[in-house]
């Protein structure tokens, strides 16, 4: 691997599996946009909501489900949502 290649390696990034539609997966890219990837291009057994770690080194791309990051994000999101819902009013609403 040349120094130029080393400099251009993006290293580690994360994508999130937003949805699985048949043989396709809708993934959220690091910039927040979504893109459709072939499900077969993702780690075997990947599920909706999983965070996938991409490690690009010397032109090789290594992908694996990052269960810790998945759990961390889910827990954080759930805490936030629970906090928003904690004062959900009872009964019917008049607007």
């Amino acid at each position, binding site marked *: 691997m040349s120094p130029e290649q080393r400099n251009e390696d993006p290293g580690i990034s994360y994508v999130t599996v*937003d*949805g699985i*539609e*048949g043989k396709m997966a*809708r993934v959220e*890219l690091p*910039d927040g946009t979504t893109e459709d990837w072939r499900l077969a291009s993702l780690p075997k057994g990947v599920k909706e909501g999983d965070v996938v770690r991409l490690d690009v080194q010397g032109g090789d791309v290594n992908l694996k489900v990052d269960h810790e990051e998945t759990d961390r994000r*889910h827990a954080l999101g759930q805490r936030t949502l629970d906090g928003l819902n904690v004062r959900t009013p009872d009964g*019917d*609403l008049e607007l």
Partner: protein
Amino acid sequence: MRRLLLLAALLGGGALAQTALPGVLTLRFLDVGQGDAVLITAPEGQSLLYDGGRSEKRMTELLTQYGVKSLAVVAASHGDADHITGLIPAVQRFKPKFFLNNGIAATTQTFGKLTASVKAAGTQGLLASDRVINLGSVKVTVLPPPPSMPRGDQNLNSVGLLVEYGTFRALMTGDSETAETQGWLKTYPASKLGPIDVYKSIHHGARNGDSSAWLKAVRPRNVVIGVGPNNYGHPTSEALALYKGVGAAIYRTDLNGTVTVTVQPGGKYTLNTEKGTGTTPQTRPGAATPVSPVPRAPTPIPTLPPSSVTYPNCAAVRAAGKAPLLIGQPGYSRKLDRDGDGRACE
């Protein structure tokens, strides 16, 4: 002149303001591309946005186009990005009173941005439960996910809405799948679920959405499919066959643009499209739709060929020695082609 304006508004013209007309309920099945978004405005002016599509920019354009001045409620049927992304600018702009949700967090940045926006706006979270939201004189019944649904599955925890005004009834059930609709069939009497005048197709016409058992209860007279160019084959021939089989007229936002339903006091309604017409309903006694759509066969939408190689960014493309990537080559994506000239990572 006043009469002309009223007539134009009743016809649901795209550039008209969303200002409420006395006695008239308006539902707009918004053309957000591949995704769902339904804007409901009561005769008294209160609005509810059920899902927001997949693009902040597109939703911002639509809110401006339809002259939306306020939102009382934003509702996320579930946490998938093609349903919630457009809710972000809606919340930021209008600071709605309530954010209706299924109570299950997604792991995307989009979900985090939405909840952060809800918090910043001072909007109250509203966990879906059996309740009625009276949007002025419009009765909106919340259909929460049946309790037996697995919490790890967003689609199966979609929140449904039944909208009633006079005799008019509309039903929206997100991306629910058979297990959830079976749960609802056990929960609610058939008389509550159907017949439905205007029904939002489940999951953009996916194979795992609508079923004959469910549609037998819902008995939709008109079906609107929120769909745009996609890689998933939506709407599927199976779903289209189901809708035709129950005698429903079919409208598609990819072919018809935004579909507007205007409901008069008592429940008489009209459907108008931005372009084209829906398909003719099959003959069925009692399925009276006050519009006479011209027969039109659904045309297949183009699907993009799935790429066998993907790159997270241009650095990865260059690292693989593939730059520039030309459109059609493995790994090409519009995201990498900033100037859209068909040459990515130039």
